[in-house]
């Protein structure tokens, strides 16, 4: 996998689930790697899955589609799915796509653990 398609994702274990922190742009090239990490975390059917986007400066509709897929799985499996730490740029894409109306989006890591 080349650096252009590779996506580093830190995975932190929480008391009731996992926190994923991707590093870098999430676009068509990197969304398959993002999807693979989300799928891996969801295999364990945690009570909570947090995606921290603090280190994601850019996300396009492929990244959004990956989050929507995860949302559908978490809804079916009754997993709390929370997205936090959106940059202004990423937040604007969420808002244009109305994703803020269906996803639980909070400001920071601490709020995500309480949501």
């Amino acid at each position: 996998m080349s650096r252009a398609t590779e996506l580093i994702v830190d995975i932190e274990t929480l008391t009731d689930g996992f926190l994923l922190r991707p590093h870098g742009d999430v676009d068509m090239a990197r969304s398959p790697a993002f999807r693979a990490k989300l799928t891996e975390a969801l295999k364990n059917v945690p009570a909570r899955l947090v995606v921290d986007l603090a280190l994601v400066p850019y996300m396009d509709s492929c990244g959004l589609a990956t989050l929507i897929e995860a949302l559908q799985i978490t809804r079916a499996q009754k997993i709390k799915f929370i997205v936090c730490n959106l940059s202004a740029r990423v937040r604007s894409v969420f808002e244009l796509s109305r994703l803020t109306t269906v996803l639980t989006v909070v400001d920071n890591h601490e709020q995500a653990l309480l949501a």
Partner: protein
Amino acid sequence: MKSDLPAPHLETCILSRPELLAPVRAMLEELAARIGFDETACGHLALAIDEALTNIIRHGYNNNPDQHIWISAWELSDPTGLRIQIDDLAPQVEVSQLKGRDLDDIRPGGLGVHLIHSLMDLVQFSKRPGGGMRLIVEKYQPAKITSPL
């Protein structure tokens, strides 16, 4: 790729590979910044072009990585802004089919065209006479307010 317009300020051709989206975004964002767009507008422009290229790679070329996409950009003076033309040689589709999904229908996919329309001031899809599709988008800078004094 020939056009009826004067020579573009920037013209490039890329292969239909997702890993080339990031350098194209960076190039167009830098061009927009040098023309005078603010950071938000530069980001919107880069996202709109990214979405257009993603659609061509995925739907037009069916993820074949060895097809060509031509990107041309013109600085506009009246109104001040940027015009970007994207040409491909993908199978032609009816322009009426190129529309985004209903945003209330939350599902993966179908957001790209909606985002392009939301982010750009002019969006024009057409069939290229020589085959393939053409997208022309324009983004204008807000008019400068000058003091009457």
